[in-house]
């Protein structure tokens, strides 16, 4: 069992480290992990789950706002981008947040093509993060099931 645990732990460490290295996650994700304990073992997963729901909702808003036949209300788009920027920042979703920054600039410049591009990228990006995190949480579960402890991995 120990060999399995050790192997899983190593896999977990490498995988998590790569998420930071590749810019999927930043410091704030590490901060969230500090808030998790034995009494709230799923805190991070729960918050991220709420975040992904937020993504769906806000991206939907942005898409609808950009889909006007006629004039687009860029401030409306921008409002949703601002919200997504906030929540992505709060959970450490670095790439999503970065895209929101760019997106916001396009909104302010009333740049329709830029906005549409960003919207597409954000959609791809949050889904990619979701998949990666699911894999990460699965590894955690496997470690625990194998009788081990989830190692601490800061970026």
């Amino acid at each position, binding site marked *: 069992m120990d060999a399995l645990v050790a192997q899983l732990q190593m896999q977990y460490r490498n995988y998590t480290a790569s998420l930071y290295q590749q810019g999927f996650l930043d410091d704030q994700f590490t901060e969230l992990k500090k808030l998790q304990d034995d009494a709230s073992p799923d805190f991070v997963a729960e918050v991220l789950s709420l975040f992904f729901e937020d993504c769906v909702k806000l991206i939907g808003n942005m898409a609808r706002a950009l889909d006007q036949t006629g004039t687009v209300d860029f401030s409306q788009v921008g409002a949703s981008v601002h919200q997504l920027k906030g929540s992505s920042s*709060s959970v*450490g979703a670095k790439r999503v947040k970065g895209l929101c920054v760019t997106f916001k600039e396009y909104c302010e410049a009333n740049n329709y093509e830029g906005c549409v591009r960003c919207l597409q990228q954000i959609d791809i990006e949050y889904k990619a993060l979701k998949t990666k995190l699911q894999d990460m949480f699965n590894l955690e579960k496997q470690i625990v099931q194998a009788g081990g402890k989830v190692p601490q991995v800061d970026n």
Partner: protein
Amino acid sequence: MARDGGVSCLRSSEMMSVGIGKMESPPLELDEVHVLAVDDSLVDRIVIERLLRITSCKVTAVDSGWRALEFLGLDNEKASAELDRLKVDLIITDYCMPGMTGYELLKKIKESSSFRQVPVVIMSSENVLTRIDRCLEEGAEDFLLKPVKLADVKRLRSYLTRDVKLSNANKRKLLEHSVPIQTSLPPPSSPDSSDSSRPLTNSPESSDSSPPLSPVEIFSSPLSSPIDDEDDDVLPSSPESSPTPEESPVRRQKMGSPGLLD
């Protein structure tokens, strides 16, 4: 809400929840710190709530300035004199919110007789100096740059606890970790930090002199503690979001205001 406007419900431990939207009020012990958190983002509300709970605060989280006023009983004109004070030790609010901004909420709180002495902390994702100044001038206790971290909340907690009960020794210890101190401050006339009973009038004239504050601990300890040079920067460019140095004395005075020392 209870019949008289919802205030008394929080003093009774049998009132587990207040039916204001999706808000729940935890049963309160009188010496526990109760924080009202205001943020329109669900994700941020969950995070700030957890940050506060982990630092042993009771938390009531609401999603708008209006809900906050409703909770505080400030949402209607008739302020009943019989209403017992709701026990709120700190209000922490997001700046950018639809409807009522955190700044507007801050103003309303500072205009109210029952809650003007409750410290209000503003959170914002944007590090805009004019915004920060405006909030501090309006009476905000502190300004936190989002994303909020555990260290930020711990710092808030430490200056809150200082105002609740406390012996001089504990106050001194907590002070070392709270407000950023100027390295340029002249040393107090009483270098011995145990000499806390020295009246303030003996302290050198500095921007930190604040007669209404009782303990000289304000002066006695900080200079011996490691001082973060970053705090000398005028612009709070670091995520620590220290207020501008000129604001520190204002903040300290506010923290020592009588109402908080109940």
